[in-house]
């Protein structure tokens, strides 16, 4: 009898090897895969009123990460990353470079980083499996610990640990945004385009020193896990309006808080776009606090109300 039990145990262990990986470890593996593997993914980005096809290629040249992102539809719109410099090449303006560790706008940078930084605001829960892009995918739910932010779901390829699908979900389980991989190719060697990108001379990184340091704004309340990243003074790119600016983030959700002289036309108190981006306004005397970000409008409202000058 004992022998039979031992035999059953011995037989079940190899089978459980991959089943037993906790959700956090899946994300750790994905983070490592995103940084170290050489791959090409074709994906579609699905937002309320946009469907965009994209190609993302990642590899390593001379031990430096090189990545290339291309929008396949519409006017040419590409981004190249070499090391910690990301250059945006867009049809309607000269190319410019910024200091960044990931190409922003596709797979959240936090997923290629240390995922334990997200644990203040989110819980990781292992979900079911499904087939995506012809590959077996393991679902990991990234559940917010409070109602102040949206939840996420990510499907990770069971062979390579690369992401296959990424959903942003509102509190009432509405899909706000989706990244869906349609083809994943693991490459044997660095593709020529990345070698070319590595050799290429890119515009110098835009200097951040012309940013005026902002006032010492503080928040009496921020949702758990949110931290202030940047404070500065600048002019809005569109309207040239002078604003005090504070950037806060919990790793996945980023919020911009602006303090400006109240305009002639007041802004709506709360505004929600269909892709989850919200805007909230709080008027204080003749000043206006505007918070923008992909979090529920109530959160923005509360943040806008909690700002104070130290």
């Amino acid at each position, binding site marked *: 009898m004992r022998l039979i039990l031992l035999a059953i145990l011995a037989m079940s262990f190899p089978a459980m090897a991959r089943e037993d990986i906790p959700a956090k470890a899946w994300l750790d593996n994905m983070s490592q895969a995103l940084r170290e593997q050489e791959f090409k993914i074709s994906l579609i980005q*699905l*937002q*309320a*009123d*946009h*469907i965009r096809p994209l190609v993302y290629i990642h590899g390593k040249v001379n031990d430096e990460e090189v990545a290339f992102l291309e929008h396949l539809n*519409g006017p040419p*719109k590409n981004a190249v990353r070499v090391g*910690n410099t*990301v250059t*945006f090449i*867009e049809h309607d*303006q000269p190319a*410019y470079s*910024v*200091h*960044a*560790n990931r190409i922003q*706008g596709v797979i959240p*940078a936090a997923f290629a*980083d240390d995922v334990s930084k997200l644990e203040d605001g989110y819980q990781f829960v292992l979900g079911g499996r*499904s087939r995506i892009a012809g590959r077996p995918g393991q679902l990991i739910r990234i559940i917010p610990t409070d109602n102040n932010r949206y939840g996420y779901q990510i499907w990770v390829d069971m062979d390579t640990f690369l992401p296959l699908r990424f959903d942003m979900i509102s509190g009432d389980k509405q*899909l706000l945004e989706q990244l869906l991989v349609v083809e994943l190719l693991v490459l044997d060697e660095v593709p020529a385009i990345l070698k070319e990108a590595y050799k290429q001379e890119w515009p110098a990184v835009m200097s951040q*020193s012309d*940013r*005026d*340091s*902002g006032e010492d704004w503080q928040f009496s309340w921020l949702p758990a896990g949110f931290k*202030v*990243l*940047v*404070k*500065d003074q600048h002019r*809005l*790119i*569109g*309207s040239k*309006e002078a*604003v005090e600016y504070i*950037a806060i*983030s919990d790793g996945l959700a*980023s919020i*911009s808080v602006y303090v400006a002289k109240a305009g*002639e*036309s*007041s*802004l*709506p*108190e*709360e*505004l*929600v*776009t*269909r*892709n989850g*981006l919200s*805007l909230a306004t709080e008027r204080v005397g003749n000043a206006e606090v*505007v918070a*923008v970000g992909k979090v529920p*409008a109530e959160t923005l409202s509360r943040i806008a109300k909690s700002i104070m000058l130290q």
Partner: protein
Amino acid sequence: MDKLGQEWVSAAVDGEIDEHTLAELAADADSHEQWRDYHMIGDAMRGELPKAMSLDLSASIMAAIEDEPAIVAPQPIVTEEPKVAETKVASTGKIIPLFKQFGQYAIAASVALVAVVGVQNYNQETLVDNSPLPVLNTRPLIGSASPVSLQTGAVQQNQSYTNDQVVEQRRRINAYIQDHMLQQRLNNGVNIDDNTEVDTIPVAQ
């Protein structure tokens, strides 16, 4: 046993036989049946038969013993039935995941449908982009604001804004959203330099 033997048995049943013949009869297995039959006939004539009577008990037992291989023999047929059931289970086992997949496709399709409906509904009501051509055009990255939410600010409705004011308001909303999108690109690098104590990162210094 011949006719003579049968008479012997009959005589033995009636007790008209001597010890020796009885022993001989007992040794003769063939006449046992007749012995029993005669006894039964006698019992029936005397009205001494039991109410429930198993006729030909030894024969039925013998038949049962003889049938035993016959009962075992149909077992392949019996086991064939589970086999059929098994194949049924196996085939349904294949069907279930298939249906599950269809379920998932249906969910995915419904999501896509919602998205498409959304496009149809909201395309007509996209924000008027009146802002001067920005240096960094991040506009295509964002979705248009939902007019439903715009109306939730009931104050605006009451104050009955002029068209210019609505345009101006939208322009300002756009300016903020554009700037937010741009800042995402610029702030991304902040994490590299120092991501332990974020409060102590004044970028502009």
